[in-house]
C-alpha cells in the first residue's frame, strides 16, 4: 500500500516541506483536510479526490476535470458568439471568429492560471474569476485588435461590443463552471461521506465477528467441560450451576453479537457468568466483585465491551500468578460520562507483551460506537496490576439510548 501511496505522491505537485515540530500552516492543514478528510478510516487513495469542508476549489481532481471540459466548451461557445455577432452586426466572419476565440481563450487561460497559482499558495480569492474575465478581454482585444482595425472596424464599436459580450457571456460561462464545480464537489463529498459510513459499519461488523470467534474458543469450552465432568460426581449441585452459567454465557455471547445494543445490566450478567465459571476452574485463586448502581443497569450499552477486558484481567493478569488475585468491575457516572473500570491485582503488563487483538478490538468499537468521543485507556496500578477504563460520552450514538440515570 505504501508503494501505491508513494507513487501517488510523486505524481502530485511538489509541496513545501514543514519542519518537524512546527505546526503546519493553516493553508497546509486545510488542504490536508481537503485531500483526506476521511484518511483515518481507510486507504487514502480511495478518497484522494474527495473535497473536505473547505469546498471543491481545494480539490485538484475536480479542477482538472473542469479544465478538460472547459477547453471544448469554450471553443464551441466562442464560435457561437462569433456566429451570433456576424448575423446581428453583419461583421466579417473570419476576423470575428478569430477575435472571439482570442478573447475567450485568453479568459479561459487566465482563469485557470489564476486558480492554479492561488491553489499552489493554498489561498482562495473570490476575485480570481472576475479578474480573469477583464484581463482576458483586454489581452484578447490587444491580440486581435490590429487585424480588426485593418479590416475597418472602429475601435469604439469594437470595445463596446467586446465589453458587452464579455459581460453577458463571460459571466454566464463563469457561473456555469462554478456551479458545475460546486455540484461535482457536493457529489464527491456525499460519496466520501457514504464511504466513510459504510467503512465504519463494516469495521464494526468485522470487529464483532472477530470478537465472537475469540470469545468461544475451544480451550475455554474444554476446560469448563472438564470441570463439569469432575463436579458431576463430586458435587452435582455445583456441576448444575456451572452448566447453567456456561449455557447463559454461550447464549449471551451468540445473541449479543447479532443483536444491537443491550443494557449495561445484561453485559454485567455476562461478565458474572464468565467469572463464576472461572472461579470454579481456578478455585481459591480467583476472587471477584462487580459494583454497579441499580440505576445504571438499565442504560443502553454496546455488547461485549467489558467482558473481553475482564477475560484479559483473568487470563493475563491473574491466571499466570500462582497466588491468583482479585478482579473488580465497577460502573459509575463521572462528569456526566459513563465510566467502566476493570481492575486486577495481577502481574501487570510486560512491556514486551504484544497488545492482544481483544484490546484493539474493544478500542475500535468504543470509538466506532461513540463517534470517536469514547476512550479505552490502560493504567498501571500500585498493586502491580492493571486498570482498564472505558469512558463513554453521555449520549452513545445509539438512538434508543436513554440518558444516564433515567429510564425512557
Amino acid at each position, binding site marked *: 500500500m505504501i508503494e501505491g501511496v508513494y507513487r501517488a505522491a*510523486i505524481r502530485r505537485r511538489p509541496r513545501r516541506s*514543514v519542519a518537524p515540530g512546527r505546526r503546519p500552516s493553516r493553508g497546509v492543514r486545510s488542504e490536508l483536510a481537503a485531500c483526506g478528510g476521511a484518511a483515518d478510516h481507510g486507504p487514502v487513495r480511495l478518497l484522494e479526490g474527495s473535497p473536505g469542508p473547505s469546498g471543491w476549489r481545494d480539490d485538484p481532481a475536480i479542477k482538472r476535470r473542469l479544465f478538460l471540459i472547459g477547453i471544448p466548451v469554450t471553443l464551441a461557445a466562442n464560435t457561437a458568439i462569433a456566429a451570433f455577432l456576424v448575423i446581428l452586426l453583419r461583421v466579417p466572419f473570419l476576423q470575428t471568429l478569430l477575435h472571439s476565440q482570442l478573447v475567450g481563450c485568453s479568459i479561459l487561460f487566465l482563469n485557470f492560471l489564476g486558480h492554479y497559482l492561488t491553489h499552489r499558495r493554498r489561498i482562495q480569492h473570490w476575485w480570481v474569476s472576475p479578474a480573469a474575465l477583464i484581463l482576458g478581454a483586454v489581452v484578447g482585444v490587444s491580440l486581435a485588435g490590429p487585424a480588426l482595425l485593418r479590416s475597418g472596424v472602429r475601435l469604439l464599436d469594437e470595445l463596446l461590443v467586446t465589453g458587452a459580450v464579455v459581460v453577458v457571456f463571460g459571466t454566464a460561462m463563469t457561473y456555469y463552471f462554478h456551479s458545475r464545480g460546486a455540484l461535482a464537489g457536493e457529489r464527491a463529498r456525499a460519496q466520501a461521506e457514504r464511504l466513510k459510513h459504510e467503512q465504519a459499519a463494516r469495521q464494526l461488523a468485522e470487529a464483532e465477528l472477530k470478537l465472537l470467534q475469540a470469545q468461544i474458543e475451544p480451550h475455554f469450552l474444554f*476446560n469448563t467441560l472438564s470441570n463439569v*465432568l469432575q463436579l458431576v460426581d*463430586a458435587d452435582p449441585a455445583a456441576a448444575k450451576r456451572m452448566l447453567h452459567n456456561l449455557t447463559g454465557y454461550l447464549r449471551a455471547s451468540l445473541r449479543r453479537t447479532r443483536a444491537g445494543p443491550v443494557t449495561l445490566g445484561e453485559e454485567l450478567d455476562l461478565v458474572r457468568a464468565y467469572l463464576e465459571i472461572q472461579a470454579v476452574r481456578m*478455585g481459591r485463586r480467583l476472587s471477584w466483585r462487580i459494583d454497579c448502581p441499580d440505576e445504571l443497569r438499565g442504560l443502553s450499552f454496546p455488547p461485549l465491551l467489558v467482558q473481553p477486558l475482564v477475560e484479559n484481567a483473568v487470563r493475563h493478569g491473574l491466571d499466570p500468578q500462582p497466588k491468583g488475585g482479585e478482579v473488580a468491575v465497577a460502573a459509575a457516572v463521572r462528569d456526566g460520562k459513563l465510566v467502566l473500570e476493570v481492575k486486577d491485582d495481577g502481574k501487570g503488563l510486560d512491556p*514486551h507483551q504484544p497488545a492482544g487483538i481483544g484490546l484493539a478490538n474493544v478500542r475500535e468499537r468504543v470509538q466506532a460506537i461513540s463517534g470517536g468521543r469514547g476512550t479505552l*485507556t490502560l*493504567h498501571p496500578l500500585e498493586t502491580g496490576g492493571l486498570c482498564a477504563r472505558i469512558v463513554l460520552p453521555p449520549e452513545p450514538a445509539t438512538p434508543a439510548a436513554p440518558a444516564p440515570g433515567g429510564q425512557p
Partner: protein
Amino acid sequence: MRAPTALLADDEPQLRAYLRGALFRLWPELQVIEAGDGPSAVELFETHRPDVAFLDVQMPGMTGLEVARHIAGRCHIVFVTAFEKYAVKAFEHAAADYVLKPVEEERLAATVDRLRTRLLGPPTDLGALLAALTHQRPEKEHLEWLQVQSGKDLLLLAVDEVDLFQASEKYTVVSSGEGEWVIRTPLQELEEQLDPARFWRVHRNAIVRVGAVARVNRGASGQLVVQLRRGGRTVPVSRAYASRFKQM
C-alpha cells in the same frame, strides 16, 4: 520395590481431583502428590522423586513444558492438555504420552497400562521435543507498551497507537492521534527496542510508525516528506534514510 508415586500438576483443583479419582480406580497402589502451579511441581518433584508426572501444559508460574525441562529424563512424563492436534502430534512423535482434556477414563486406562510397562525401563528423554516446543517463540521481543504520565494518571500506551517519536534534547515526544507525551527514553534507545518492521527511522530526530504514514511527498527542494494520516503532520526524511522509500 516401593509403591510407584505420581505427581499431578494442574492449576485447576477440580481437574486434579478428577484425575486423582480416576487414577485411584485404575491404579490403586499408586501414591499421589499434587501441585497447583509450576514452581511447586518442581519443588515437590525434588523432595519426593515420583516415578510418573502428569503435567498440565498451561499452568501459572511455569508451564508444564518448562517443568518437564527440569525433570526430563528423571521421571516418566504424561502431558495433560486441551491443546490442538498439532501439539499432540509433536508429543506422539517424541513417544511422550499425553492425555486430552476432558480426560476420558478409557484413554487414561491405556496410558496407565503403558506406564506400568515403562516403569520397568528408564524414562524417555524428552530433550529434543522440549527444545523444539520451546523454540517456537519469536527470537526477539520488541517493545510493545510505553508508560506515560498523563496529568495525575499513569497511562499505558500500545506502541501501535503511536504515530511519531521525536527527539527533544534528552527526551522523546510521543505523538498519537489522541495526544502528545514526553518520555525519558532517548530516541536511539527506543529505536533499538521497537520492531523495525513497524517503526522506521526517517530522520536523526524522528521515528514514524509505518502504518501511520498516509503518503510520502517530494518537497520543492527534492527532499522527501512523510505525511501522517492523523492530524496531517509532516516529517522530513533525511537523505540518510531516503533510500528506504526510493526502493519501494
